[in-house]
Structure formats: C-alpha cells, structure tokens
C-alpha cells in the first residue's frame, strides 16, 4: 500500500469521475458529495506525503509500458509542490463550481471531465520519466477540451478549436523532441539526467527548442499564447482552473523539468540557452501586461495577466541562480493561489451581478464587499504589494536577477509591476470608490449557494496573504521551494 | 505423346494474350456487363497460363490443375453474383424510370 501511494493519488479522481458520468441529474446532490469527499481525501493523502517526503522518503511506482519506455510515477519535492497546489485548489474549485452552476445542463459531463483533469494534472506532477509526462500532458488536453466547449455556443466551440490546434501542435513538437532525445541517449528519467556530452550541441539546441516550444504553448509563452484569451469563453470555474493550475502550470512545470532534470543546469548554461529563454520570458511578461491594460472585459484582462505572470516562473527557471530558481518555483504556487482568487471573484461578479466589463464594476465593492475584498487581495498580490505572496516571488526573482548578473530583470519586474498596477488599480478604484447602481434587496451571502460561490475566493485570498506573511514558517511554499532548490539543483 | 517445344509455350502465350485483351476491354468498356465479361476473359487467360505451365514432358503435374479447378469454381460463383447484381441494377433503374438501362456513371 505504501509503495503504490503515487498510483492511488493519481487514480483517485477516477472514482468521482465515473460517479459523475453515471449518476442521473436528479441525484446531483450525491454527485456533489462524491466530488467533495474525493477532493478532501486527496488533500489528506497529500498532507501525509508532504510529511514523508520532508523526512526524505522517495515513493515510486513503475511499469514498463513499451520497450525502453517506463511509466514511472514518483513523489519528489518538486512534484509535491505542484501536487499540493493542485489538490488544495481543486477542493476549493469543486466547492466553487457547485455554487456557480447550481443546477444546469450537462453538469454530469462537467464534473466527470473536471475529475479527469485532476487526474491528468496530478499525473503531470508525479511523472518520473519524460514519456510519462507526455502521456499525462496529452491527456490533460483531451480532458480540458470538453470543459472549454462546455457552453456549446459558437464562441466556446471556436475557443475549443483554437485550444486544440495550439495544444495538439505543441505536444506533437514536444513528442518529436523527446523521441529524438531518446533515440540519442536512451530513456530519460528525471532523477537521473541523461549523459548528453556525446550529442552535438546544435542537435541539443534543436531538441530543446522543440520541447520548450511544445511546452511553451500551454505555458502561454509569447508568441504561443493565442489560445488563452479565447479560452475565456469557458465558464468561470474552468477558467479559474485552467489558469491557476491545470494547463498553464503543466506547461511551465514541464519547462522547469526540461531545464533542471533533463538537460541539467550545466548543459543549459553551456549551450547558452538560458539568456534567450529569459529574454523571451521577460518580453512575454511585459507584452502580456501591456495587452491586459487594453482589455475592457474582466476575464480577458485576467487572461492576459496570466500570460504575463506565468512567464515569471520561466524567467526564474531560465536565470539559473539559486534565488531566481526559488523565486520561479514559489511563484508557481503564489500565482496559482492569487489568480484563482481573481477568477473566482470575476465569476461570482458575473454570476450574481452580471458584471463582465471593467466599466461595469462601479460600486461592486458595496454590493459584494466580501468578494471584492478577496479580489483586492489577489490584485494587490499580483502587483507585488507586501505582504501578499506576490511580493515574495518578485523579491526573490529580483535578487536572482542581480545574482546572475542580469540587472535588467529588475527593470522588467519594476515595469511589469507598474503595468500590473495600471490594470488592477482602476478596477479597485471603480469597485470601492464609485457609487453602485440601484439594486434593491441584493444580499451577497443570502443562500447556501451564494456562500459556496463567494467563500472559496475568501479562502484562497487568505492563503495568498498567509503565504506572504508566514513565508518564513516551516510549511510555507517559500520554505518548500528552498527545500527543492537545496535537494535538487544547488549542489 | 510428345508435344513439339513450340506447343509447350502455346498455352501460356495464349493465356498472356487473353489477359492483355481482357484488361484492355476492362479499361475501355463502360457497360458493367461487358466489363464483367472482360474480367472473365482475364480469368480464362490466367487459367490457361496456370494449366499450360504445369504441362511437363510426358507427365502432367496435377498440382496446377487442382489450382485451376478451384479457380474456375471461384470465378463461376463471382460471375453469377456479378450478373445478378447487374440485372438487379438495371431492373431498379428501369423501375425508377430513368429510360435506357445504360448506366451513366460506371467509370472504373
């Protein structure tokens, strides 16, 4: 039982998935219960694993699925960083989704595929070989497509088409890259980086471009980010999930794995691949923020903000210095918590007040004070205002840039923060300081459903605040990121 | 019983000519019934090649002949099916009132 813990962790969402697909609509309450129970159990398992891995235990489950290609699930520190983020946010998003949808069409399908997404994201996190990673990465695409087209209108179908076109082309490039590398150096496990010294540098560079290009699609790296803003046609819980943890993070996580566990810092530095990637990431940061300023629709603005924020992770990873790595890794968690807060609030505003555009936000803070408070914490965090979590990421990234003799990073961070302020502060200003339109008898937390819609964002906002305030405590994301850096990358 | 050497090649050569003629007919003819007949000519040619090549000096190899007999049985069965289908098709077309039973789009 101990040995198969990774497998149990990955396969657990299959149970609620099957229950969700099978139960008829009139038993929706049972379906919701199954989803919540499974999500809670998963949090429990991960908590236990965190304790074990901290103590230095490594768990794995291996199965040879094709000659020379092992299917390997492995619990290590980096995997757990991603897994704990996913399981926490999934529990929260499940509650939110139940509140958001209430009773509507196609919910069995929604929750079924929702769970398959959890399964894939957990699999992505725990993958121990490149091929295993690819399998789950591709499964993630398939499981998210029905969620993107959930509404079934022309806009969502178009978003679904664009999403598939980008992601499938990306994973094809990634697949070619990993098979090419496999043909040259044999099978690739993350714990045992292959010996690349015999491979010509040009080939290595090409493979790196293929892999990072393929993964960069999901990570929304410029110019591969086009699918993300259109995917906003999906319902709010889906956007929240796609942006905060599932899809974009899978791409960013994959790039981190490529740099540190496949190529290794030494090879990447030797080939001179770090600076170009860092430059591209920096450009994406600024470009995403600039585009965000120009958007009027809240969700699209947040989407471009994601384009920008995810590249912080890549910036940290490609700078290859201890502080930069820590900054990048911790931002993986911080961005997830903050962005999901923002999306859940945006969804609540649209759901309860019909607010979709920035210009409609006038006085929203008086009508939905709890929601807007959570939103404000997320927004301030994104800007990098202490003591919210975003500040920690930016601080470490900035120091990392200085350590790697890349002082321009500080300028990029400052510029991006200014732009973040430029698109978030007007929203806060409108919501809190302008008068609301007349709304008789509106109550933010009137029913249980309302509370399920609003309170998850409060929880994540509190988490974002806590991750910043208690950053030096022993269970904070920062401490964990430092542990990863110590164990893996900074010998 | 000896057959002159030229005659030894007579059957295969005739067979080859038949195959060529049949193939030519299959490609140029339009009506399915004619095409079916052309295919039968090809078949006859092949059986001649098969049987003729089996003729040795003095003894005749029974093996190719067994093959030919089987082949002929198969060919008869398929020809029957083909003619039945062609007959049915022209009936259908006549019933549909599309005038002459000359099929219009039978380009192979």
């Amino acid at each position: 039982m101990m040995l198969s813990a990774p497998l149990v962790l990955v396969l657990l969402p299959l149970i609620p998935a099957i229950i969700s697909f099978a139960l008829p609509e009139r038993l929706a309450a049972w379906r919701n219960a199954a989803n919540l129970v499974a999500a809670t159990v998963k949090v429990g398992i991960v908590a236990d694993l965190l304790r074990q891995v901290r103590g230095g235990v490594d768990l794995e489950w291996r199965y040879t699925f094709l000659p020379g290609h092992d299917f390997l699930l492995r619990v290590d520190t980096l995997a757990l960083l991603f897994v704990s983020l996913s399981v926490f946010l999934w529990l929260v998003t499940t509650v939110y989704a139940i509140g958001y949808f209430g009773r509507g069409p196609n919910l069995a399908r929604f929750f079924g595929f929702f769970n398959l997404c959890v399964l894939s994201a957990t699999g992505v996190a725990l993958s121990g070989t490149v091929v295993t990673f690819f399998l789950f990465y591709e499964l993630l695409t398939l499981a998210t497509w029905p969620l993107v087209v959930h509404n079934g209108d022309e806009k969502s179908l178009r978003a679904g088409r664009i999403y598939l076109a980008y992601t499938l082309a990306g994973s094809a490039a990634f697949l070619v890259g990993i098979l090419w590398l496999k043909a040259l150096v044999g099978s690739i496990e993350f714990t045992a980086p292959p010996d690349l010294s015999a491979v010509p540098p040009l080939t290595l560079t090409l493979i790196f471009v293929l892999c990072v290009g393929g993964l960069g699609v999901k990570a929304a790296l410029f110019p591969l980010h086009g699918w993300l803003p259109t995917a906003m046609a999906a319902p709010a819980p889906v956007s929240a999930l796609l942006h905060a943890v599932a899809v974009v993070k899978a791409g960013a996580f994959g790039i981190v794995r490529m740099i540190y566990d496949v190529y290794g810092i030494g090879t990447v530095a030797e080939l001179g691949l770090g600076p170009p990637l860092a430059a591209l990431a920096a450009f994406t940061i600024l470009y995403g923020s600039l585009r965000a300023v120009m958007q009027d629709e809240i969700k699209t603005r947040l989407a471009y903000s994601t384009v920008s924020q995810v590249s912080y992770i890549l910036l940290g990873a490609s700078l290859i210095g201890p502080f930069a790595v820590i900054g990048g890794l911790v931002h993986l968690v911080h961005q997830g918590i903050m962005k999901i807060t923002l999306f859940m609030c945006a969804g609540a505003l649209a759901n309860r007040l019909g607010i979709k555009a920035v210009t409609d936000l006038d006085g929203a803070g008086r009508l939905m004070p709890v929601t807007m408070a959570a939103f404000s914490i997320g927004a301030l965090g994104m800007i990098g205002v202490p003591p919210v979590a975003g500040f920690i990421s930016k601080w470490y990234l900035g120091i990392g840039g200085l350590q790697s003799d890349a002082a321009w990073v500080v300028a990029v961070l400052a510029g991006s923060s200014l732009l973040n302020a430029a698109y978030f502060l007007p929203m806060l200003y409108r919501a809190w300081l302008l008068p609301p339109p007349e709304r008789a008898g509106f109550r933010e937390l009137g029913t249980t459903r309302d509370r399920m819609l609003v309170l998850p964002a409060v929880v994540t906002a509190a988490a974002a605040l806590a991750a910043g305030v208690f950053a030096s405590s022993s269970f904070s994301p920062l401490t964990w990121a430092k542990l990863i850096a110590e164990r893996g990358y900074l010998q | 019983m000896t057959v002159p050497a030229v005659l030894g090649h007579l059957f295969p050569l005739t067979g080859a000519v038949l195959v060529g003629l049949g193939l030519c007919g299959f490609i140029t003819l339009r009506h399915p019934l004619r095409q079916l007949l052309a295919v039968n000519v090809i078949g006859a040619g092949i059986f001649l090649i098969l049987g003729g090549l089996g003729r040795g000096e003095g003894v005749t190899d029974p093996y190719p002949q067994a093959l030919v007999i089987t082949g002929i049985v198969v060919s008869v069965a398929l020809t029957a099916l083909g003619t039945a289908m062609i007959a049915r098709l022209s009936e259908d077309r006549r019933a549909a009132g599309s005038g002459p039973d000359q099929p219009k789009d039978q380009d192979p």
Partner: protein
Amino acid sequence: MSPLDLLVAAPLAFMVAALVAGQGGRWLILAAGPVMLALSAWLVVLPPGVAHLVGDWDLPLGILLRADGVARLLVPATSACFVAVALYAWHEFSPKAGAETARAHTFWPMLYLMWGGSNAGYLTTDLFNLYVTIEMVSLAAVAMAAMGSLAAGLQYFLIALVGSLAYLLGVALLASHYDTVDATLLAVRARPDLPTLMAITVMTAGLLVKTALFPLHGWLPPAHAAAPAPASALLSAVVIKLGFVILLRLWFEAFAEIIRPAAMDLLGGMGALAILYGSVQAIRQERLKLLVAYSTVAQLGYLFLAFPLIANAQNPAEPWAAVLVHAVSHMLAKAAMFLAAGLMLKAVAGDRISDLAGLARAMPLSVTAFALAAISLAGLPPSGGFTAKFLLLHAAIEQGRVVPAAVLVIGGLLGAVYLFRPLSVAFSGSAAPAVRAEAPLRVAAPLALASLAIALGFAGMTLIELSSVAAPPAVAGPVQAEPGR
C-alpha cells in the same frame, strides 16, 4: 481437431446454418459469439510454433495453418468486431416486411462467410489458399456493400475482381516456377529472377487495389459510406485488412530476401501520400460517413508507411509490432466509429455532420463511443492507435528518416482536425434535440469496441510479445527490454 481448423470451419458451419435458418439467422450469433470468442482466446494462449497441416497432407500439396503473431492479434480482434457488429445488426437485419426481409436473409450468411474467410486468411501461409479466402471475403463484402448502393457495390465488385485476378496471375506464375505457393517454402526457394519479380509486382498491385491504398482508393469511400452501418463497419474494419495481411506475408516472409529497399520506399511513399490525401479529403467532407470512410483511406496509409521502417530497422520487432497494433486498433476503432455514426445518423434522420448538433447531450453514450474511437484513430494517448504511432515515430526518428516522421506528426494533427469536427458539432447547442433514447444493447457494441481500442494502449508489452510469436526471420529480433535505466 485443432483450434486452427475450427476457427475456419466453425464460421462456415454457421454460414450454412444461417442459410438454412433464413429468417431466424440472427439467433445464431448467440451460439457463434461465445464459440468464436473462446476459440480466439484459445488461439492466443496456444504455445508458440503451433502449426497444423489440414487433412495431414504434406507441403507443398497440403495447406498449412499456423498460429503466428499476425493471427494471434488479428483473429481475436476480428472476432470482437464480428460479435459487436452482429449484436448491433440484430435489430437492423431482423425479419420485416418487404424488401427488408431479403436483406435479413443475405446479411447473416454473408457475415459468417466473411468471418470464416478472414480467419482462414490470417492463419494460412498458402498463397493460393489466400486467393480463395480473399474471394470469399470479397464476395461477402460486395453483397454487403450492395445493400447500400447497388452501383457502388458493383463498382467495388468489378475492381475487386480485377485485383484478385492480378493476384491469381502472380500465384500462377509462382506455382509454375517453384512448384509451390506456400509462403514458408518460397522464403527458402525464391530467387530474384524475372518471373518472380513479375509475380510479386502483379500480386502486390492486385492486393493494393483491394486494400485501397492511395491512388487506388477510388472505390472505397462511396462503397463504405453508402452501406448500412454494420456493413460499413465490417468493410472498413475487417475486409481491407486481409489484403494487407497477405502483403505482409509476401513482402516480409516469402520474398523478404529479394525485395529491394527502393520498392519498400515506394510503398512507404504511397502510404505517406495516402495519409495526407485521405486526411485532407476527410476534412473536406460534409457527410459523416464519408468522413469516416476517408479516414480509412488515411489510416491505411500508416500500415504501408511502416514497410520501409520495418525493413530498415535495427530492431524490426518494434515497427512490426507497431503495424500489427495499428491494424488491430484501427479495426476496433473504425468498426466502433461506423456503428456509433450509424446510431447517431439514424436518430437524427440525416447524414450530415451538421445534423449532429447537440447530440452530446441527447445521446451521450454514442458520442462517447465515437469520441473514444476518435482518440484511438487520431493516435492520442492512451490508446492502441497511440501505441502504434508512437512506436512508428520512434522507429522513424531512430533511423533518422525525416519524411516518415513528419508525415506521422502531420497525419496525427490532421486526424485530430477531422475527428474533432463532428465531436465539436455534437457538443454544440445548449438545447438537446428530441431523439429517441439510446437502446442500451445497441450502443453497447460500439462502446465495447472503442473501449477495447483504448484498452490496447495499456497492454503495449503484451501486444509486442504476441506480435513476435513465430515472426518471419526478416522481422524477428530480440525485443529490446531495457527497464528504464
């Protein structure tokens, strides 16, 4: 009696029984299904190297039946297809008034004839016997194709006939030249002289016509699209595989020593063009069944794209396994897709892709079956189709062959384009159309087949082991089993 005999004899006995039973022919599947599935399972677990001479006549006169890797993979898959199709066809070909009765009369005997013919084709090594089996299968296939459109069926019939005769001509040449037409004996005796090369050429050309490899595919889409759903499923899944299996026997067993690499490349090139052409055509179709039929044209290309990859591989066992896994998973997925398409089109009483709007909600199980089949056909993980294409891509990259690798990648993407289009339409529309509820037994058939195609993705090692049983020397190689690192 050996299971090898029974696999051929039993369906033929059921055919006779179906002819006699007439209207009641459909009941026979209740006996035939379990019997044939059990025999197939028996075949899979037979010890390696089992072979059997029919009637104890020695080669070259006798006929050798052999349980090699090809048979061990294709016979069970074929049986699964036939059983599922029969369950689906239960209602469609039941006794009704008028012309429908005639169809019910012909369908069931033809099903068993095709079944017996296919099994004989997978098991035998005798090239003339193979001629008889392809004619058996063609006969049944033509009869089934004619149920949809007589004109398309007739066209198919004539072309198939010429193809078989070309094959027969080659057999005749070989018989007179070598005094045997057994593939195992030819492998030893074959010399690269003119009659042999001529024989190989005409046989290959004939078989390519029957397998509908681009540019000889013209007859396939109209015939497969017009037939009733169960018939389309069998035509696309089973019938064309037989010509391919015979080509495998010719190119990698009987004449493996004398076929030149350039010829392999030619076949591979035709396969590549088939993938691209078939996919593009499939994307352009407005009618669902034509889309699925063109997808068959494309998917067949993969089978031939693999030829040069097998011939040039350091370890040919992997691409060899890949091509067989592809044949099997295409068989299962394509049958599932035609059956699911049949259910959906019948429910909406249309034949266009746009008619599917909103079906994901109204017919979730049919759409699920279609989607699972699409995943396997597009080569997305986890599925048999993915395993096959993964191994092929791996082989192509290992050999440094850029063109096949590029075609594999582009073909996969194009596949996703045409397969997700109907799915996308099915997911559209918030209001579900009013259709009759899905009959659970009928939808079980495509669902089971599609799930099998997906399940194959988890059994990669087993499939590779099975495919290497009694593999011809040209492809037998130690399966590389390095356990990671």
